[in-house]
Each structure stands twice: as C-alpha cells, then as structure tokens.
C-alpha cells in the first residue's frame, strides 16, 4: 500500500468516523442537558449532519455522476410531496 493509498483507504474514513462520533456525543449531551430549547430540531439536525457525512463521503455521492445524484435526491423530493400535501390536510383540519 502506498502512502496515498493508505490515506485514501484508512485515514480519510477514520476522520469521517471521528466526526460522526463527535456528532453522536453532541446529540446525546444536547438531549440530556436540561433546559435547552429546540431539542427535537437539534436531534434531527444532528442526524441530518451525520446522514450527509455518510451519504456524501462514505457513499461517495460527492464525486458521483449527475444521474446518480439525481436518483439520490429524487426520493427526498417525492417524500417532500407526501409530507407537504398530507400536512396541508392535517394542520388545517
């Protein structure tokens, strides 16, 4: 294994992993320290950050070709239709 290969195969994933662990610690702390506002939002926000790290870096969406990225985003956009229109009912009942 060359130096570059080692960097690519081991060092980079380990750094991402370290970031994930840091985020996990943060989310636990935020949830259990009493009196902090927006707990749900914070929990989901940190989950989103973790998911983005995994998707962009572990799953290499960052360097993927255009159609692959479109495929990845399509699910979220369509889930958006489901949520927005269901809440158009639910929140105005």
């Amino acid at each position, binding site marked *: 294994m060359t130096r570059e290969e080692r960097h690519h195969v081991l060092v980079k994933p380990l750094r991402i992993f370290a970031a994930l662990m840091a985020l996990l610690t943060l989310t636990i702390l935020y949830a259990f320290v009493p009196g902090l506002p927006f707990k749900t939002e914070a929990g989901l926000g940190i989950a989103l950050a973790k998911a983005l790290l995994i998707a962009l870096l572990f799953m290499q969406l960052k360097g993927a070709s255009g159609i692959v990225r479109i495929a990845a985003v399509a699910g979220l956009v369509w889930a958006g*239709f*489901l949520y927005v229109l*269901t809440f*158009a009912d639910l929140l105005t*009942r």
Partner: protein
Amino acid sequence: MTETPEAGLLAREPGERNYLTDGTTVRSWLLTTDHKRIALLYAAGITFFFFLGGAAATLIRAELVTPKGDLLSADTYNRVFTLHGVIMVWFFLVPSIPTTLGNFLLPLMIGADEVAYPKLNLFSWYLWLSGGLLTLFALLAGGVDTGWTFYTPFSTLYSNSHVLLAAAGVFVAGFSSIATGINFLATIHLLRAKGMTWMRLPLFAWSMYTTSLVMVLATPVLAMALLLVFAERAFGMPIFDPRSGGDPILFQHLFWFYSHPAVYIMVLPAMGVVSEVIACEARRRVFGYEFMVYAMLMIALIGFMVWGHHMFVSGQSPFASLVFSALSFVIAVPSAIKVFNWTGTLYRGQIRFSTPMLYALGFVGLFTLGGLTGLFLASLPVDVELTDTYFVTAHFHYIMVGGSVSAFFAGLHFWWPKITGRMYSETMGKFAAVSMFFGFNFTFFPQFILGYMGMPRRYHEYPPEFQPWQVMSSTGAVVLAFAYLWPLFYLTWSLVKGPRADDNPHDATGLEWQTSSPPPTGNFNTPPVVTEAPYGYHPQGFAPHSAAPTEQAQTP
C-alpha cells in the same frame, strides 16, 4: 430436459435461430435472462389473471341483474368484487403493458441488446408470480372482503377474511414493480444506441420512462401502508386505530399517494402504444412530438400531487380539498394536449384502418370521455355528490379498461408479428376491435347514469329503480366478454397456422422493425445507429409496402 411443444411451431424455418428457438427446454425459459422471453413469461401470467379477474366481473354483473341478492350471498359478493379489484389492478393492469410490451420492446426500440439488469428482470417476474400466488392462495383459502382499497379500520380490526395473505401478496408484487421500474430507468439512461438522443426516443420509450418513474417513486409508499396494516392486524400494533389515538385518514393518504399515481402507471404506457400505432397507421409524424413528451413528464410529476381528490368526503380538511381540486384540474391539461395531438396526427395522413388502428382510435374516444368525466370528480361539490357511486366506477373503467386495455390490445396486435413471427387474421381482429368498443360503451355508459342517480358502489342489493340500467350494463358485459375471449381464439390460431410475418409488416420506422421477426436473442446483428428523429413517415404518397401482408392473412 424435454423439448417444449412450441419449439417446433415457433421456428420460422427449420434451423433458424431466434429468441424463441434459442434454447427450448423448460429450464431455458424459467431461468432465462432474455428480456423478450421474460416478456412472454409475464404475458402468460397476466393472461391468466386477466381471465380470472374477468370471471369475477362476470359474477358481479350476473348478480346485479336483479335488485335482490339472489345469486351470491352478501359475503361472497364482497369477496368477488375485492378479488376483481385486487387481481385486475395489481396482477393485470399495472404490469400489463410495461412488463409484456415494455420488456419486449424497450431494448429493441432504443437499440440495446438487453435491459440494464437482466437477472433483476427475471427476479422481478418471480417476485410478481409469488405475489400472485399468495393472493391466489388468499382467494382459495376463503377470500378477502375489504375491497381493493384495504381501508382501515375495517381491514385491520373488523374484517374476518384473509386480509394478511392478500396484503402480503400485493406487497411482494409491489417490489416486482419497483424492480421493473429501476431496470427500465437504467436501461433508458444508459443503454441508448448511438445517436438515440432523448428527443429521438419513440414515444413508447418515453411512456416507459415516465411509467417507471411513477412505479419507482410511488410503490414504496403503498408497501409501507400495507406493512402498517399488516402490523396492526397481525400483531395488534395500534397504528390507525382511533381508540388509541390513531388516524384512519392517514392510511388513506398513504394508500392514495400510491394508488392515484398507479392510474398513470396504467394509462401512460397506453398513451405510448397509441402514439406509435396512430403515427404508423396514419403515416405521419406525431403531431407536436415535444409537447407529447413534456405532457407525459407533467402527468408523471403532477400525478403525485392530486391524490386527495379521492378524499373530498373523507373528513380531510376543506383547505386540503381545495388544493387537491385545483391540482386535479391542472393535470387535465397535459391529458387534453395528448388527445388533441393524436387528432392532429391524423390530419393530412394516409390512414389505414387496420386492427391496431381501430383499437387505438377506440382508445382515443374512450380516454377522452373518461378524462372529461374526471373533471366532474375534480369539481368539489359535484365530486361530493358523485364519489363512491357508479359514476366513479364508470369513470375509472373508461380510463383503465376502455383506455388501457384497448391500447394493450392495439399494441398486442401491432407488435404481434414482431413477437411471434406470425400474422393474425385481420378480419377477425377488426371484428374484435369494433365489438370491444361497442361492448365497452354498452357496459359502462349506463353506469354514469346510475351514478348520477345516486347508486352507490359495492352494493350487493339495490333499490329497484336502478334495475333497468343495471340490466343494460350486464347485457353489454356479454358483448364485452365475447370481445375479450375472441382474440384469445384467433391469436392462438395464428401461432399455429398464421402466415409468416416479414420483418416490417407495417412498414414502420422504429428500430424494433429493423431486426428480424422474431428477433434473434441478441436483438440486433449489428448495433444500430440513429441519425434522425422518430416517425419519419413520408408525408405524401403511398408507403412502399402498401399491400401489406396483413391483408393477405388467412382466416382460420
């Protein structure tokens, strides 16, 4: 390994190699990854389910001849109409055109030698078949009585029938749908022949693209809805149960998020078929090709945002109803564009009234009427009156049966020579096409009147004032049943005794007509290169092969 009997029949000449003769063992069919063979496997399956669902329809129409429930008990009747709906929707209409004509033609039309994931294609047939068998088992075990809509809390807490088995069957078949959709999307994106740009794709390929989008993005939500029904019914998880704070309307949102777009899964492929047939038989370029493409894309997209028009009386909020009503009117625009463009394609054509053309013209008429009655159901106060009555039944049968099934038959006849290498009897075909059109209208037009008079859906017994229209509808159903059975007879005959078809009997322009009939296993002997837009039919004069072999076909 045994030789299948068809092998000898289907070879054009002794020793000729095509996809039908290339491997003749049962194993070579059941383990095939050839998209053309998989198309035939599906064709066998959906033919079975179509006639099974049709048998249920026959029972329903027979029962409804009289106002009293004298043929079937109430429970049996409920099981029969559920069977009819479940089988026809998931095991006939949704897979019908995509998995048979689509599987067969899509790679051929774009100049590819396979679909993107051949093994996944075979796997999806097995998934679909398992789903079908599970559902069939539910039927044999005593049936399901929830209606194809599986509304909670009836399906989860009150029904005494085999809901779990049927839901599991539909769940599994859903994944087959997803697999087919992913396969087609990747095929179109990645396997187009050289020169086959997006705006040179035949409209049937575009219709497969948009259908696949809907399949891939809608079906998972149905799968989850059914899974939640399963969890509530089988394991007592309080999910939609109002006694625990659950919301039965949530199920309806999840269900219709799939089931309204599913209507477009059924009708978009039909639009693709009809565009191909009309362009070829009128010898014209499709009028407004680009508009046709964008119309289909709009239908696929906006189709996801209109599901709430099934729920105007469900107890959803008035605000949501207004939003869904407005969006439902918007989606009528691209549908109207398509109808106008088919009409425009006929203008200045060289129209030949072959069997596929008669079916296709029938589609245009029935789809237009079906679409226009959709406007009634998009209008809030009128929908309140008409929803869950026979008006709705008539409306969606016009779209899905009058429309999609006519188009399926149009495509089946149009590509029959390519698929089987044989010609069918043109006389018989025209007779069937005309009977289907009249039989259909005879059966379903009276149901608009019944609905307007207030006759509710899914009624085993009904007040006597509705009887004349019900009798008329049932009489029409006899004609319709004949029109569906008749092709089974002459098409089977053509397999055995039909004259050999040449490679391009309709003198059509698509790439699928440039290979032999039936095509070789690898589709093309040399990879095709595309140099011009589709539908390069000559605007003037006769087509070179005007004495098409279709007119010389033997009658049995």
